[in-house]
């Protein structure tokens, strides 16, 4: 039995959420620091055991064979790291932002941070879970607090949009639940590792495999908001309170990708090999569609939301390669998209705090007023564009390297064509990214923005932390890459 470390990572925020709620009445917005401390503890606990593969298992419902386990291996590390780091720094960012959003209503801070902690814990639990039932519970736990956060502190038609968000993702979750039940019915097990072993050693009819895998894939792809299942995302991500947007888009939706890799692909590699090309095409269309839509937006948060759809296309694209290079690239892309988009949503939040504007056409020339914000925005977009020395490049070349390698290996010219077109689609990212930077930060400053000041240090510090991380990962990827590729190689026999 291992020391109870990871369980602290996940359960401490849940257990302490009510205390944060109560403390909020006394501490008002300062309770953000308490949440920060709690999440910092979670991150620290996780980093303590990040050196090698680490597994904790606790018995839960012995009669059903359900365990609660937490596993940190090369595959879950990038995800858990991203969620932990983002939720920790965004807790700090929330302090100035929610003060701006909530204002002088001290009783509301407690509920915001309590929900925030539950939300973060849901995501951490989902990526560390070792059991399908446990995974599903955490997967749904992400949904409920985020729904409430949007409904309560969002913008625009926030209640309607929160409801829409809930419905869409819940329908996805139900498809997932159906597939989990089916898997249980076939294998009689719920532990991810056990199911995988059983499925490797028993032949099940391919039609059945296709059925289950499709349901599962749909469940995850709703979360990832790939083309066709994306309708909820621009609304939710644009109208959520900005710190929550900065968790929804960079941290949460990619967990769908984690599910695809850890669970769907782990269980049904054959399905993915057979349907590699349609998945690649779907991913490509998502990339292009998200990019095109981002080009046409005027609301800065909506633009970022569509960009997230496009980036999830890259993630799925890497998965469609079904080889070590491409999948490792996808996983790293989750991390680098998290860092880049985290920076960008926080930048959008600073713009909202300092100018009260979201419309790009009403901004301009802000680089001289807020130089640090401008540089951060540029770094964020460059990470998405995949410029070398940012983490975005490492993930991008691995994704496309993986797809090209798989198409050359299979001799599939269609797939090579999709890979080439996919790389060309990265031009959209450069287009909307640099164009946005130009329209917001360069050119003459309009008169109504003459008095704008740089954002507060409290809002900028989390951004700077992420910016440093994107360069560290971009230049020294080895510590993460080493374990990631090893795990992928071992876990799914991919060459």
């Amino acid at each position, binding site marked *: 039995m291992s020391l109870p470390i990871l369980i602290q990572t996940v359960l401490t925020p849940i257990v302490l959420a009510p205390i944060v709620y109560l403390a909020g009445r006394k501490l008002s917005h300062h309770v953000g620091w308490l949440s920060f401390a709690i999440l910092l503890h979670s991150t620290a606990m996780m980093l303590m055991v990040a050196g090698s593969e680490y597994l904790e298992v606790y018995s839960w419902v012995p009669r059903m064979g359900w365990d609660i386990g937490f596993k940190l291996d090369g595959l879950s590390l990038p995800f858990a790291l991203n969620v932990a780091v983002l939720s920790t720094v965004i807790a700090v960012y929330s302090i100035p932002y929610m003060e701006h959003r909530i204002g002088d209503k001290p009783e509301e801070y407690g509920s915001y941070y309590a929900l925030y902690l539950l939300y973060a814990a849901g995501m951490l639990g989902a990526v560390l879970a070792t059991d399908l039932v446990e995974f599903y519970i955490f997967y749904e736990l992400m949904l409920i607090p985020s729904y409430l956060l949007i409904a309560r502190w969002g913008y625009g038609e926030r209640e309607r949009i929160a409801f829409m968000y809930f419905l869409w993702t819940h329908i996805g979750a139900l498809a997932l639940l159906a597939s989990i039940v089916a898997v249980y019915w076939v294998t009689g097990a719920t532990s991810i590792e056990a199911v995988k072993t059983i499925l490797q050693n028993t032949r099940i009819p391919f039609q059945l495999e296709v059925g289950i895998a499709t349901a599962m894939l749909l469940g995850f792809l709703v979360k990832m908001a790939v083309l066709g299942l994306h309708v909820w995302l621009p609304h939710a991500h644009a109208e959520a309170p900005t710190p929550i947007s900065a968790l929804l888009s960079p941290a949460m939706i990619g967990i769908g990708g984690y599910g695809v890799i850890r669970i769907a692909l782990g269980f049904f590699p054959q399905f993915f090999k057979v349907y590699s090309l349609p998945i690649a095409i779907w991913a490509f269309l998502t990339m292009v569609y998200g990019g095109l839509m981002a080009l046409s937006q005027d609301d800065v948060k909506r633009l970022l939301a569509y960009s997230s759809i496009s980036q999830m296309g890259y993630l799925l694209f890497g998965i469609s390669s079904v080889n070590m290079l491409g999948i490792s690239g996808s996983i790293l892309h989750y991390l680098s998209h998290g860092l880049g988009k985290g920076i960008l949503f926080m930048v959008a939040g600073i713009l909202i705090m300092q100018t009260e504007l979201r419309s790009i056409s009403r901004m301009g*020339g802000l680089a001289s007023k807020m130089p640090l914000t401008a540089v951060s925005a540029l770094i964020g977009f460059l990470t998405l564009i995949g410029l070398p*020395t940012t983490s975005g490049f*490492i993930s991008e070349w691995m994704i496309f390297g993986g797809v090209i*390698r798989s198409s050359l290996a299979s001799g599939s010219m269609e797939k090579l064509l999709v890979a080439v077109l996919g*790389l060309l689609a990265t031009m959209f990212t450069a287009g909307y990214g*640099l*164009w946005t930077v*130009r329209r917001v930060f*360069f050119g*003459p400053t309009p008169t109504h923005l003459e008095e704008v000041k740089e954002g507060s240090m409290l809002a900028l510090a989390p951004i700077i932390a992420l910016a440093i991380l994107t360069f560290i990962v971009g230049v020294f990827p080895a510590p993460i890459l080493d374990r990631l590729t090893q795990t992928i190689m071992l876990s799914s026999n991919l060459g």
Partner: protein
Amino acid sequence: MIEAWLCWLTPISGALLTPILAKIDHKVRDYGAVAFSLIAAIFASRLLPVAIEGITIWERYSWMPIPGAPIFVGVLVDPLSVIMANVVSWISFLIMLYSLEYMHSESGLTRYWFLMNLFIGNMLLLVLSDNLLQMFFGWEGVGLCSYGLIGFWYRDEKKYWVGTYPDEYPPSHAGMKAFITTRMGDVGMLIAMLAIYSYSGTFSIPELQSNPVWASTLLESGLLTPILLLMLLGPIGKSAQFPLHEWLPEAMAGPTSVSALIHAATMVKAGVYLIARMAIIAASLIPVIGFEGFHTFFLAVAWIGGFTAFLAATQAVVARELKKVLAYSTISQIGYMMLALGAAGLAADIAEGLTASIFHLVSHAVFKASLFLASGAVLHVCETKYMDEMGGLKRYMPVTFISMLIAALSLSGVPPLLGFWSKEAVLKVCFKTGDLALFLLSAVTAAITFFYSLRMISITFLYPKSKHLEELEVEGLHLHEVSPIMWIPYSLLAVSTLILGVLGWFVEEAFHESLSHLVTATHHLEAVVEPHGAVIDPSIASMLASISALIVGGLPGYWLYVARRADPRLIVEGSPILKAIWGFLWNRWYINKLYYLLFVNLPIALARITNRWIEVGFFNGIQYGLSWLTLRLATFTNRLVEVSFFNGIQYGVAELTARLCRASRLLQTGSLNINMYQVSIILALILVILLIFMGVW
């Protein structure tokens, strides 16, 4: 070879230190930045023995542990990289020195020095890398810095715009255009790199050179040529060659020192360097897989180079802005370098083509840096970017005039300047390919080059003083020579082009000696194209071509602009054909307009349409439609199923029960006798049924 590492690490560290030095004092920051570039140049010089001896030193350390195909970080020190590193670092240093004075009154200098040093460092990283992936870091780093520096005046004040109304572009737009255009090429390059990596399992240049298996596998599957051509897209973008050349004319929106850095020392030279590397790799693979595998690639390089040289030169003839003439001439001269590399493969003499190309690269770096720095001084003094608003500057700025004249003559290939030798070397290798069309094209381009150089020098320095300058003088400005810290760098460069030119033949031999160590393998190989050197000696042919080009271009240039026997404007106005040609050239062959239509307006329109019809119309429509339908269904179910049917049944059952009760009340007579009858009848019935079921009956 610690010097090789430090050579590129110093400017990058210098860049990162700039914001910290700026906190101390702005003088410390400025001189510190220049010092870092000087240190890099000194490190580069310490590598020179490698180039002279013609040896190769290769060092590397683990970087990305990809199972089966690990990636390293390393340096490759060989004659080519050493020559490049020295050109880059020394010319950059002079530009940095010049910037001290040129930029001193600007704001945002921390950003300037940061980006300049980062630019230099990335370029050095690019040329010293031992593998393609690491090189790509430098490659994109150069792109990023150019984006930041071209758009240095990001506030887009009107005076920093480039072009003439209605084709004017603000600096921030120009920076973005440069980044996005070059990136289009980089995408192709990345595809090629990744494809090569998936076949060979390595990005390392020496490994690609020594192991021909990847190339022969690609050749067998018919993919070698497509991949080489995709790879070529990267250099085409970075070196501003057709069809990705349109970013460079706007790239002059940045400070002139930046233009000098982009045009002379860094950025555009990166593409030539990469193709030179590819040619060297090809040279070592040719003994195994033959020339045929690379024929299309070299043919494409040669023709793209030759055509671009011509395309850009024609546009330089009509340009109004001083820096734009220089920008077009850069595109054109880089075309020559490409041409030489392509010709190297076509003439089956990689060593000679490589020498010609790199020799021209070095010579261009020297005279173009001089030209740009001097033009910066002119712009500074005249407060205009248009040549026709200058004029008569020879009297006021003699040092600048002489430097610019020497450099422009070198650009035109006038003997005995360095440019003459290098251009002649290019023409020679071009002649050796046996492709007469290509040779003539490059000779014609040489003639046009001399013509526009004379035009530029004359309009700027020899023409009578313009109205604009006279107005400025009325306002109290007096035209003057710039300070020595500005003119020393460019006059030094002009003198070098002269001195090196006098020694030109020896310089060329030295380059050939050094670079041919890299391609020893291809000596004495059978060529695909039979050179027709038997008819006429290539050296004589190229010499003749150079001289005739000078006469053909020089005479009308002298007649029209220096001697001013006729007014060129009136000649053009008078002839509809010339006017049409002028318009065609002025509009950059309409390529720029076409690109804006295809790659800017079209995607944005497409995005708007997608938003309107697909996202809002279709997807959101479906969603709202579904929710509307669900609500409708619910209402309908409520009314028909719930109220009418189920409630109906419920009430019906209740009613029926009540009626039954009422009916059965009639039976409840209270008389025991009647009840007993009923009981016995029912019991009898049950008995009968039971008997039937038990099969008794």
